[in-house]
């Protein structure tokens, strides 16, 4: 056993130095703790509420505290996403720094991985592993924010590139390449009546595939039970407007693909099909002909 022999009496100068060091150390601890705590302000103020990747933990009130607690900020979800929809938040999100989100208008999640790769990649379960299929996802809920601007609502078609030649977003077009998403800017449309939000809806595409007897990956479980969006007539002159159904998962493809600036259709993150159903069954319109 070694005994201490360094308990010599300290000189007044040494003692003063020790005291200065103690005060400085306390100040350092206080300052760094305050900086770390400042990171809680953005999340407490709700300023970090964002569209999150599929399976992001939230409670019945759509509170994402568990998600922020569980995320290890590694970005593996970013790396596996085939359309690169997932980004990591910056320090402006405070404690939400490094946490994944989706900017739907720039690049929505089109479920082109089919298997929810981000969920599978998540090492902590911040993207819940309970989620198996795109149709079970609850990211948000679409809303027709500017019905008057909707091309279909004016009886108009759409020809050309929906978001212009410089748009960087990508989508998987099954009929072009089953495995690789391509830039939306390389895929011109020629539509008599604009139905882009319905036509490109990943849920509607799956429903159509299932109706033809060819569900994604040959797995009937991939078939969405309910419609997400449909055009419905508003008058007898051929004008139509999109109506959101309870199958909507809030992936954001409709928001991304809408050719009108600013977009007619947006994703609300403070609602999902479940919360709407819980609030009142009548709030969600069951689209006619829905499965």
């Amino acid at each position, binding site marked *: *056993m*070694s*005994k*201490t*022999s*360094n308990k010599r009496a300290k000189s007044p100068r040494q003692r003063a130095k020790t005291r200065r*060091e*103690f005060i*400085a*150390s*306390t100040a*350092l*601890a206080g300052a*760094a*703790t305050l*900086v*770390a*705590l400042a*990171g*809680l302000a953005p*999340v407490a103020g709700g300023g970090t509420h964002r569209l999150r990747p599929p399976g992001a933990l939230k409670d019945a009130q759509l509170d994402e*505290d*568990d998600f*922020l*607690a*569980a*995320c*290890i*900020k*590694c*970005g*593996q979800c*970013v*790396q*596996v996403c085939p359309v690169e929809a997932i980004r*990591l938040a*910056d*320090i*402006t999100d*405070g*404690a939400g*720094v*490094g946490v994944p989100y989706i900017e739907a208008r720039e690049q929505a999640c089109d479920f082109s991985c089919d298997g929810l790769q981000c969920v599978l*990649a*998540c*090492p*902590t*379960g911040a993207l819940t*592993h309970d989620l198996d299929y795109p149709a079970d996802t609850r990211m948000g809920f679409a809303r027709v924010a500017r019905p008057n601007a909707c091309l279909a609502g004016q009886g108009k078609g759409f020809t050309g590139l929906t978001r212009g030649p410089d748009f960087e977003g990508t989508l998987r077009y099954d009929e072009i390449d089953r495995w690789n998403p391509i830039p939306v800017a390389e895929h011109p449309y020629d539509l008599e009546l604009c139905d882009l939000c319905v036509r490109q809806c990943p849920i509607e595409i799956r429903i159509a595939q299932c109706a033809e007897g060819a569900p994604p990956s040959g797995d009937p479980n991939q078939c969405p039970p309910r419609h997400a969006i449909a055009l419905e007539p508003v008058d007898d002159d051929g004008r139509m407007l999109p109506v959101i159904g309870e199958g909507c998962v809030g992936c954001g493809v409709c928001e991304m693909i809408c050719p009108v600036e600013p977009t007619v259709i947006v994703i609300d993150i403070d609602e999902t099909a479940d919360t709407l159903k819980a609030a009142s069954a009548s709030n969600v319109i069951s689209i006619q002909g829905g499965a």
Partner: protein
Amino acid sequence: MNRFVESLRQLLGAEPRRPSREDLTPEVVRIYDEKRQHKLTKEDLEANAAAHEKSAKRHKWRNRRWAVLIAVNLLFVLSFQLDVQLVEGSLTASRVLGFHMADLNAALQIMLAYKHVVLNLLIGTATVFLLWLLLGGRSFCSWVCPYHLVAELTEKIHLKLVDKKLIKGRSFHRGVRTVFYVIFALLAFATGYTVFETISPTGILSRAVIYGPTLALLWVLFLLLFEIFVSQRAWCRYVCPIGLTYGIVGSMSPVRVSYNMVDCKHEGDCRKVCLVPHVLDVTIRNRSTDIDVPLGADCTRCGLCVDVCPTNSLNFEFAGSKKLD
């Protein structure tokens, strides 16, 4: 074991204990006495140092370490950019060829904040624990952490400023790191957020390197400026809980730097280059209790002392037997 306890005491912030004469083995006492009788002249020492300065081995471990640090971080970047999927994720959590890895401190923060543990995280944490147990605990700091590298480079500016007497370096009590550790653990548990991760330059830098620059880098810049103008290597020395976590792992690790007192001239160059000089307290005259003494848990295994020692008194070893070259 007393040495183990002493190593943990120092890790938590205590000053090294000075052994009394009775604690030293007779052989060690004899060698110290011999050294006292054969005092070296200043010229001898200077000639020694000059010869060592020219030695090809002068920066051997540093160069190896920098190469490894850059390679590891580059592997993350290239895996993502070229989509080869060797290493996915970042330093907080990753998958290496499909195997889950999770940074021990980040995993701990999440367990405290989220209060659930999923199997993948447990697997990743256990893998990383075993990995760094084998590789030397705080060797994570000096061989992998990107902040360590930039702090090491900016440290040279700090030392130059101090040398020119433009600034006076400030030191803090090392125990403050232990205080931080407890504060961050309590905050994670109480607030439900991984509070430390918000300000962790390791996570911020690793993500910036892989996913592109962010505003969060300004915080890292602030820390570096603080280290340049106020306190040398302050983050690694006085704050970072990652270092303490890996230090605890390292206390049980077989890979370490070991000190042999026989040829040591007690010049103290090793302590000047060391991030955690208290682990080199044994190199001071009459402080080594044995001929061979392994350095404490707080040692980052950076090898700067091994490189700088002109007498080969400091060496990497594996579990007290094999010298690593």
